[in-house]
């Protein structure tokens, strides 16, 4: 920590939290956590899943009262305040899981609770204008009249940020905001945050991604096991150093190996003569809003190949994967799995022909949160666990015990509901289910979204091992470094088409950027 930082922090910090303790029943989320955030800085709060970052921030935002410790905002003791007090004092929180009304429009969601009025009525026209001008000012692009239910995850995230800004937040807390954003969107967000900072605002950013921490933050606080482990000035620290503080040991970071692309090329990848495991021909798919989301797409994946799709979220990736998985009707085209035409086959039939699918949203699709780990481990495979329509409890239990051990799902209690697990371990349930069986094609959508560095390392290793074992993988990720690090070929998706397909060895983020934004179409 530099001298000036130390002085700034001690001289009326925007946020000072000391000795915060917060428990939920037997679970200790925060034990003696400290946080000092200087006014006008961008502060990164990093740590593995379950390190207590979100809890600490919820205490700050007034959602939880701490069991012990004090919270000061702008020098005033506000320990135990309520959400409304926090909003009134200009503390706004953007949550990892959206708190939006899906049936209302973007503008209606943003103004909810502080609607502009015309007489007795809500002035929706003015709301739309206000929200649109706020969008323009912040560089966050989203259609103010669109229904939230129809938005992509990335767009919904932007609405959440707009909501906080509309309420005049001066201290903005962002809980993993970039987990759902594409690189250009992330850059836009950084612009927003820097503008906010220049305007005298203070930002606390919860994140797992160390490149982001380096890119945007002034100061870093690392948490582990509910405690504050260390505090760094961003200048003069390295991702490796931060990762070590987070995990407590050295970690393999794909950031470090990005330039070293050769080491990721699998031997089988150079066997283009093998028959494709997945062939998509002239596929067109509509979005929920009825617009054409995927246009006449043609591609194939060969065994032992990872085809990565880079692109800003909302350019048809979701619809493409849902169509291949059998979850969305196709308008036209043909999908072949290992030379079987599966265009009109059911989800189960496709799964039985060797299709596995890691869906982009594990809380909506990938898991049934109130089902146990064991029950979740058979989702989509339930027809293989018992005869004559029954379920074989003993086989389900044996299967669960095996998978929990093999994929290191913690806690290793198959009867625990998936809801009780951390994000990383929840994702491991999905990975175990989809990759812990025979498959020839894997659709992997945002496989490491919202999981900690340790789990990312594990999931990447699983994907590489599957590729090396001759599986074909279609990878969609908003995390461009991830696409670059894992893929053999990279397709950039824009407006429902592949605008370019390149061998990964020749790609750089700078090169792909113009395609992703449509500038190079």
């Amino acid at each position, binding site marked *: 920590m530099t001298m000036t930082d130390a002085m700034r922090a001690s001289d009326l910090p925007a946020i000072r939290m000391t000795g915060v303790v917060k428990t939920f*029943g*037997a*679970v*200790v*989320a925060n034990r003696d956590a400290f946080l000092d955030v200087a006014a006008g800085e961008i502060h990164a709060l990093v740590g593995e*899943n*379950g*390190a*207590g970052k979100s809890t600490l921030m919820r205490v700050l935002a007034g959602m939880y009262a701490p069991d012990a410790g004090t919270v000061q905002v702008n020098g005033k003791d506000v320990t135990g305040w309520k959400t409304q007090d926090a909003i009134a004092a200009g503390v706004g929180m953007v949550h990892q899981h959206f708190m939006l009304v899906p*049936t209302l429009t973007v503008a209606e969601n943003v103004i909810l609770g502080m609607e502009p009025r015309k007489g007795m009525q809500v002035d929706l026209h003015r709301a739309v204008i206000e929200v649109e001008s706020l969008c323009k000012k912040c560089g966050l692009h989203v259609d103010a009249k669109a229904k939230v239910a129809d938005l992509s995850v990335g767009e919904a995230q932007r609405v959440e940020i707009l909501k906080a800004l509309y309420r005049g937040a001066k201290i903005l807390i962002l809980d993993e905001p970039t987990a759902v954003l594409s690189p250009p969107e992330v850059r836009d967000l950084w612009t927003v945050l820097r503008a906010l900072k220049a305007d005298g605002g203070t930002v606390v950013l919860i994140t797992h991604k160390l490149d982001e921490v380096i890119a945007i933050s002034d100061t870093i606080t690392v948490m*582990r*096991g*509910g405690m504050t482990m260390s505090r760094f000035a961003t200048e003069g620290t390295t991702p490796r150093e931060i990762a070590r503080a987070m995990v407590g040991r050295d970690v393999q970071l794909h950031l470090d190996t990005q330039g070293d692309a050769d080491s990721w090329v699998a031997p089988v990848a150079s066997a283009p003569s093998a028959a494709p495991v997945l062939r998509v021909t002239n596929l067109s798919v509509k979005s929920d809003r009825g617009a054409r989301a995927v246009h006449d797409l043609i591609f194939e994946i060969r065994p032992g190949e990872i085809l990565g799709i880079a692109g800003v979220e909302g350019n048809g990736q979701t619809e493409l994967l849902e169509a291949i*998985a059998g*979850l969305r009707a196709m308008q036209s085209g043909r999908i072949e799995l290992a030379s079987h035409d599966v265009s009109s086959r*059911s*989800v*189960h039939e496709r*799964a039985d022909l060797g299709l596995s*699918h890691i*869906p982009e949203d594990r809380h*909506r*699709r*990938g*898991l*049934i*949160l*109130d*089902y*146990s780990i064991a*029950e979740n481990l058979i*989702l*989509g495979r*339930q*027809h293989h*666990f*018992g005869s004559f*329509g*029954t*379920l074989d*409890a003993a086989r389900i239990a044996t299967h669960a015990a095996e998978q929990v051990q093999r994929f290191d799902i*913690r*806690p290793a*209690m198959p*009867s*625990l*509901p998936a*809801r*009780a697990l*951390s994000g990383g371990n929840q994702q491991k349930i999905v990975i175990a289910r989809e990759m812990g069986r025979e498959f020839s094609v894997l659709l992997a959508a945002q496989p490491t979204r919202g999981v900690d560095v340790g789990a990312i390392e594990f999931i990447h290793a699983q994907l590489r091992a599957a590729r090396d074992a001759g599986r074909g993988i279609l990878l969609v990720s908003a995390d461009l470094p991830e696409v670059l690090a894992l893929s053999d070929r990279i397709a950039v998706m824009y407006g429902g088409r592949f605008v370019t397909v390149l061998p990964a060895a020749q790609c750089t983020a700078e090169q792909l950027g113009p395609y992703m934004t449509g500038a190079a179409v």
Partner: protein
Amino acid sequence: MSTEPATPPHVGIGLAGSFLPPLVALAIAAVVGDLLILSFGEAPSAVFRLLVEGTWGNAYGIGQVLYKTTTLVCTGLAFALAGRAGLFNVGAEGQLAAGGFGAAVVGMLLPAGTPALLAVPLCLLAAMLVGAGVGAVPGALRARFGASEVIVTIMLNFIVLAFLNWIVSSTLHVPETLHTPPIVAGMMPRFADGFAAFRGSAANFTIVFAVLAAVANWWYLFRTRSGYALRAVGLQPDAAEYGGVRVPRVLLVTMCLSGALAGLGGMNFVLGYKGYYEEGFAGGAGFLGIAVALVGRNHPFGILGAALLFATLSQGGLAVNAIVPKQLTDILTAVVILAVATAVPEVQKQLRAAAANVTAAFYRDARKGVS
């Protein structure tokens, strides 16, 4: 997190977990009951003694309680099964009446002297099929068009009941009455046939079918693939779809099964008690089934207990009518329902989901109207 939860959080709905809230609710109801009785100038102890003596104190009382329990188990199971799939079936009243009517018609059409071993299953099948048919309407509308089953089942109750009354009063009734001619085959044996002590009470062997239905329900929900799919649809329809479950199909099938369970309850009155279909025999048992399911927390075995409780209160009202108005026990029933609805998170969640379901349907319609 480095700290793992020391005790596993709440897993499913255990039987022990379903017992406590109704007991607390009962305690609250007892306090409210005391106050009400005192306000009538009577001694609570005397009234409660009368209530217990009139229900569990003699064979007749027990018989009446068991008779009422039977219908409530069926309608409670009907509501609970739908609830597990995220459906709010308010139509048990109509399904119950229709099931009873179906059983009565088959019982009348069969030749006299058909052996009970043939006639009873045929009537049972008729009751369940007709109930399923009534349940299929909201099920199909929901599965095909996304119409709120809450609204459709409420409306359909009026239609079904009015339609049955019209058939009965126009063509099937015995002159000067509101009921059909008696059935000639398929009558259920009564308890009184074997045990003289039950003489006069309506208790009959339909209760065996109701208990079997509860066991079958449990098995279906927790031990079969369809039950796994059904509960998945209720918890997270998108995840169920991802898991290869055809969600609209599950919604339709569940509403049919729910209707069939309610229809089964119609046998109790028609085959077990009167021997004919009579206008208004359902008498609110379809709606009370909602409360039974909520208090029984949608668990088949919890529902058996809850049905016994509500049947006891209902019969107890008649027993205490001599010294306090029988509406006293109606109030106690209401207090139990309110206490459970307030105290149990799952019940709150289910009620909120139903409200959201209706709101969403109205919202959709409003949108269509505008555009």
